[in-house]
């Protein structure tokens, strides 16, 4: 087995630094394997959050060589092992310890989005009839594993810390899944514009680039939501016709 150098961020909310470790690496290994090896042999106090090791739980999000990625899905064969590999916690969230960050803000945000409100059932037995083509669009959004890599890479949160004004790509996807659902009757457009701050997104598509589920976050969720906001607030012709129709 060959040996490679890994620089892992060690510290807590008060501060920290990259610490260097040597690890034995072999074919088929992923970064999370190396972190576990370091934890088992050199740093038993190293904190790391992980669960499924199959890219489905979204727990082991980190920044590998500066790029937000899942540790369990980053094969060593895709990295240049002649250079030290850096592993850091996500930058958009407060650090707890080592590679673990406090992502609880995300769950508080999620609670603020208006929940699903279906229309009256179509059949007497309380069921609905939906065309498969209509529901396919929102099924893409349900692939989200809440790894929060998109939140981490979004510069509105990462660089400008607009956590109090912008819900971030993950929750714009969540809002899109509800807002575009063929059964849903709730209107979230006003919240999207004001409280959820969809206008802060400047569509640089970094969220799409890092999504491990390959959800087209910007094209299929955020931009369609922006267009719905335009319909309601920035399209004078539509506003005029709504006015003629007696709607606000």
């Amino acid at each position: 087995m060959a040996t490679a150098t890994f620089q892992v961020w060690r510290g807590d909310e008060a501060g920290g630094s990259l610490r260097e470790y040597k690890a034995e690496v072999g074919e088929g290994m992923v970064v999370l394997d190396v972190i576990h090896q370091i934890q088992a042999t050199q740093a038993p106090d190293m904190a790391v959050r992980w669960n499924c090791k199959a890219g489905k739980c979204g727990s082991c999000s980190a920044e590998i060589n500066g790029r937000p990625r899942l540790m369990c899905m980053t094969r060593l064969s895709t990295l240049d092992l002649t250079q030290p590999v850096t592993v850091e916690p996500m930058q958009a969230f407060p650090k707890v310890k080592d590679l673990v960050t406090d992502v609880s803000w995300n769950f508080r945000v999620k609670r603020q989005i208006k929940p699903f409100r279906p229309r009256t059932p179509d059949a007497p037995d309380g069921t609905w009839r939906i065309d498969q083509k209509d529901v396919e669009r929102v099924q893409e959004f349900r692939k989200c594993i809440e790894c929060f890599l998109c939140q981490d890479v979004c510069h509105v949160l990462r660089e400008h810390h607009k956590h109090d004004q912008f819900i971030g790509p993950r929750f714009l996807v969540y809002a899109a899944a509800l807002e575009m659902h063929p059964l849903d009757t709730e209107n979230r457009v006003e919240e999207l514009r004001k409280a959820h701050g969809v206008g802060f997104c400047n569509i640089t598509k970094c969220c799409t680039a890092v999504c491990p589920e390959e959800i087209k976050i910007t094209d299929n969720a955020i931009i369609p939501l922006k267009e719905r906001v335009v319909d309601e607030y920035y399209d004078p012709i539509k506003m005029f016709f709504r006015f003629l129709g007696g709607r606000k």
Partner: protein
Amino acid sequence: MSQAALPLKQRGWGQTMRRDAWWVQPLAVFLGLAAFLVYANFRVFEGAHYYSGHSERNAATNYLTPFYSPLLFDVPGVRPSGHAWWSEKPALLAWLPGWVSPAALILIFPAGFRFTCYYYRGAYYKAFWADPPSCAVGEPRKGYRGENSLPLILQNVHRYFLLFAVLFLFILSYDVWHALWFKDGAGGYRFGVGLGTLILATNVVLLTGYTFGCHSMRHLMGGGRDCVTKAPLGHGFYECVSCLNRRHMLWAWLSLFSVAFSDVYVRMLAAGVWADWRIF
């Protein structure tokens, strides 16, 4: 809204742990768009060489460059092209200084369409404004308003520019129809195809792919509804637009290149630098 328990530190400009050449893509976008802007401005203010038939060498051809289409009026002092909407500058526009070419009056529409395009916005925010320079790379400014307030909130006008872009497709298609007719030297026209015809036709195809793959078009063609099967022109059309939209960046660059190349080709014909290749 819930606030994360800060503090979180902002990184300095260009600061990143990324090892890859993250600066290549924004630099390529910067160079590509800057080159186009410089060339387009040169052509808009040149006010000449917009119609291939002006050259004696290519007198039989009937190509109008897309930069000057629709041609509102022929540039004063230049031989009539036969493409102008008005034979001379209309009295309504007489107050315009001489250096304002007919192209300057119409290019605001395609330029506005591209400037407010969702793809280009993301690209030039990175390449020209470093907001951010690239994903997970530190920014030069601390303040940020995004498209939430003036001036960038005006980007929401995109759907109106889309309407003009569709109109321009009809006009450019009509120019391709003109490009199929070659002067026979006896005052009439003969049907034919030259290299210029193919270039102008390809340009229209690429522009159509770009325009119909636009995010606003997708919204108007059914994306704005919760049930896409009830799209105004049918679910098939919505799917078609979505299909083009998946390669919107590619269409954007190909069509930008084809517009510039079509103009270079016609300009060189009009200046007599090279001769058109007549296929039949």
